[in-house]
């Protein structure tokens, strides 16, 4: 279908009527003010949501009732700045509906200028972002909860992208290694590894990333005091709905004391075996001496 200019349509229409319909049809609340900020127009959605008409906008009462108390001062300051400077206006604030509940809106406005550059009118819209705002707040809350959990666990923890590039470590990692994200991101963790383990660990980690299989390894990591401690390191892939690996979550668990206890146990066992063998030799030696004495006797 080819586009036709409105003026060429056979049925005569009023552009003003069409734009009036458009202004009421779009999902935003629409408003127009004069250069001083006095309202000249509200669309029907504004009236339907707020319950206020253009006549109600004279004076401060409508705005004081409409805006959430926590948003009033900020809204006044930002709108005042735009009126004074002609800068575009943008703000997130809460409007009370005529039914009593508050919803979050994104308020935006731009000045329409006359030929001489002076501001003739301000055109503004308020877009309902309530659901997105709540979802973002919930997401932020979940992220805060995750960060709290990630920093509370006794392990060092980290996250890598699908290629194995590490982009996040928990606070314990930084506390233990004395390093920064700038130093550690990507493959920077190799800097705190015992050099003799770097090649083997990197090879096995790279293979796990390539194959998308869980990774586990045991190697020493250097603390900020310069001493190495042994860590059992694990990582699991996080997949999207299609099964593609999108991220890796990893932990490093300090097993130094367990290793020391294991070594002590092995040493004790070896010592015991050696002592028994030594005692047997001594008995054989004594037996041999006795036989020799008997022969002499």
């Amino acid at each position, binding site marked *: 279908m080819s586009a036709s200019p409105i003026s060429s349509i056979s049925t005569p229409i009023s552009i003003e009527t069409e734009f009036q319909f458009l202004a009421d049809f779009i999902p935003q609340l629409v408003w127009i003010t004069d250069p001083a900020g006095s309202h000249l127009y509200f669309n029907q959605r504004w009236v339907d949501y707020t319950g206020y008409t253009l006549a109600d906008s004279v004076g401060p009462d409508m705005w004081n009732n409409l805006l959430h108390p926590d948003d009033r001062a900020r809204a006044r300051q930002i709108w005042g700045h735009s009126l004074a400077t002609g800068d575009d206006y943008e703000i997130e604030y809460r409007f009370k509906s005529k039914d009593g509940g508050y919803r979050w809106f994104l308020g935006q406005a731009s000045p329409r200028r006359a030929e001489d550059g002076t501001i003739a009118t301000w055109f503004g819209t308020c877009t309902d972002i309530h659901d997105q705002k709540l979802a973002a707040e919930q997401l932020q809350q979940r992220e805060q909860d995750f960060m709290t959990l990630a920093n509370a666990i006794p392990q060092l923890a980290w996250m890598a992208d699908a290629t194995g590039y590490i982009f996040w470590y928990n606070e314990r990692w930084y506390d233990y290694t004395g390093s920064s994200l700038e130093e550690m991101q990507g493959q920077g963790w190799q800097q705190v590894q015992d050099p003799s383990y770097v090649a083997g660990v990197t090879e096995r980690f790279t293979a796990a990333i390539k194959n998308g299989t869980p990774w586990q390894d045991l190697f020493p990591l250097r603390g900020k005091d310069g001493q190495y401690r042994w860590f059992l390191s694990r990582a699991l892939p996080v997949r999207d709905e299609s099964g593609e690996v999108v991220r890796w979550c990893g932990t490093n668990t300090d097993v130094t004391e367990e290793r020391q206890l294991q070594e002590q146990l092995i040493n004790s066992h070896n010592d015991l075996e050696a002592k028994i063998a*030594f005692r047997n030799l*001594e008995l054989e030696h004594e037996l041999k001496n006795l036989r020799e004495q008997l022969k002499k006797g």
Partner: protein
Amino acid sequence: MSDLLLDINLQQVPDGYLAGAWRIAHRVLNRTSPDSSLAVATALVLDDQSLQLQAPTQNEVGSWAVQRDELLNRPYLRLNLPAEETRALVTRLRRTSDGARSQLNLYFSSGLEMQLDRP
């Protein structure tokens, strides 16, 4: 210089690591007579082949040698003293990286166990 004592591989320990003036830091007698020379000794000086046992009341002089047996994966010491001849298995030897400090654990055929420090 690190003060850390490192375990020495007893299968490859040089005899020279066992020589020197050892102070007896700790001992467990087990069934050893508490009056025996080794039970009351405060130090053992292993110098070349001569052994000097130092005790609060008297010193004794004898000889010592490092011996090995293919059944044992660690050396043992043969100690000859005027009153007795005994053998002691080396159960552990630790040294600092510069050799300035050492710690030696011995297990005697009588059941006596000793930890010796140097210096």
